């Protein structure tokens, strides 16, 4: 069996079902609404597994599923050397969101990473600790800031309501996912002009493990033909 992992609820699941449906492969939940099992019509040998979008990268890398739909941001954040563990088969054109760095609108002197870095240096000298950036995307943010030579910051873990951390004074800036920027603005924040870390969208991935059976490889080929990828 070729196991296909799909987000288990919400718009992401519906959009994924629509995307496959439009390409001749019907995905549906089997049994009651609460069960996380599913069925696939249109291609033989494919099994639907419903998982939380955040678990799909790890399950792909571990080989527990062979295909998976999840955000490209999650794959980059959760998998070390993601490119050696999974392959992008198709960007799916929905679930778009940008991982960005945002600072208070009152920081009229800060528009770029260059400014952020200078502000961080002065902040550290003044307050005695490094400027705090709240995020749940530690790896992506750290790599981005390192590549751009930003110093004197520290990452603070925030798993939810990240936009509120600045107002609550548990962080000075944030790095978070946004689709329109509206929530950021409503919370008194603005996006740095060069602060786009990653433009994410829902993407179909395949795991790169070498232990696939010939049947699985054949099934993938048939599926990709049907999907016209």
């Amino acid at each position, binding site marked *: 069996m070729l196991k296909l992992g799909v987000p288990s609820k919400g718009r992401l699941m519906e959009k994924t079902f629509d995307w496959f449906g439009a390409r001749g492969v019907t995905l549906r939940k089997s049994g009651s609404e609460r069960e996380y099992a599913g069925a696939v019509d249109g291609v033989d040998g494919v099994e639907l597994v419903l998982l939380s979008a955040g678990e799909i990268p790890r399950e792909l890398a571990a080989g527990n599923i062979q295909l998976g739909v999840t955000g490209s941001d999650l794959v980059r954040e959760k998998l070390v050397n993601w490119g050696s563990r999974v392959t992008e088969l198709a960007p799916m054109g929905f679930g778009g969101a940008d991982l960005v760095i945002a600072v208070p609108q009152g920081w009229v002197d800060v528009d770029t990473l260059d400014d952020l870095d200078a*502000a961080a240096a002065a902040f550290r000298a003044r307050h005695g600790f490094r400027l705090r950036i709240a995020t749940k995307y530690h790896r992506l943010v750290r790599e981005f800031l390192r590549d751009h030579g930003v110093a004197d910051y520290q990452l603070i873990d925030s798993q939810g309501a990240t936009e509120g951390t600045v107002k609550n004074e548990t962080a000075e800036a944030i790095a978070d996912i946004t689709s329109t920027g509206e929530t950021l603005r409503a919370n008194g924040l603005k996006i740095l002009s060069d602060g786009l870390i990653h433009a994410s969208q829902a993407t179909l991935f395949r795991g790169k493990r070498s232990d696939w059976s010939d049947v699985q490889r054949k099934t993938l080929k048939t599926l990709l033909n049907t999907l016209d990828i």
Partner: protein
Amino acid sequence: MPTSPATLKEARRLRDHFAAQGAVVVKADVLQPADLLLDLYGEDIRARAYLTADPLRGEMVLRPDFTVPVVQMHMETDADPARYTYSGKVFRKQETDENRANEFVQTGYEVFDGQNPAAADAEVFAVIAAGLAGLPLRAATGDIGVLMAAVKGLRTTEDRKAALMRHIWRPARFRALLRRYGSGHVPPLRAALLAADDPFAQAGPDIGLRSREEVTSRIAALRADAAAPPLSSDEITLIDAILGLRATSTDALSMLRDIAVDMPAIGSAVRRMEARLNALSLRGIDIDTLEFEGSYGRTSLEYYDGFVFGFYASDRPELPPIATGGRYDALTARLGQGRAVPAVGGVIRPDLALEVGKC
């Protein structure tokens, strides 16, 4: 992975070799207080440190290196000169290459001696080289002190020099700053901000810990910077020449002395390098073949501020350096509460030394 008996044996051999130079054997706690320590390391190690919370002691870190704890220990004594050796595991997350170990043994040698820094530099290098004798290694050396002296000597504002000093460790940003200071260009958004009667007209609410007064004082700093004349292209060329330097130590010294004619600020750093090369010669190191790179050491530990070196496997470019070290005078000043002791040290990875020896 548990340390293999062979690695332990090699670590012991190296520690005995260092002790035979008169070094006192010391130990350090595996769990170290995180706050002070992590500020002293560079971004690379900071990101790779294993942090854990202790209900009584606050945030702790699994020892990512020995130098800082050894300096702390030394600064509480009055011994001078002093030599120390240690051997034990350090812990660093590997975020990109799963084939690299995340815990490994380091065996080190640290010298605190203010009398003759050049001799101390040469001693540490030569003692480490002797510990690795017979292995197919190539040595790389550099001198962060030359670059720092060049930055300090630039004819520009103190703010710009401070910003460049801060980014010595981040070559890309350092270069970007240098270019910006040289161009005199003010980006349109910045120009609009500086020209505004009320910069805060569209500012939105004041939130967070960074106050309006802090923003105002940075705007003042930006105005001063915009008014400062651009950095001369001659000076940028000289800095580029230092950074691009790649030659044998003897040739590098000669080139740096040429540069010092136009940039007298690096004179004393170059004289220190000359004294070090003489001291290395006295210890039997061939300085006519020893490589020197003007940029070497800029992406390693941020506490090095003088001589830096590393030993690499000649035929195994994929291996991390087998040994690394350098001078860290400023670190002792930060940990010494006003007291500073010139210090230099280095570490060998016994596991890698064995691996290279097998080929």
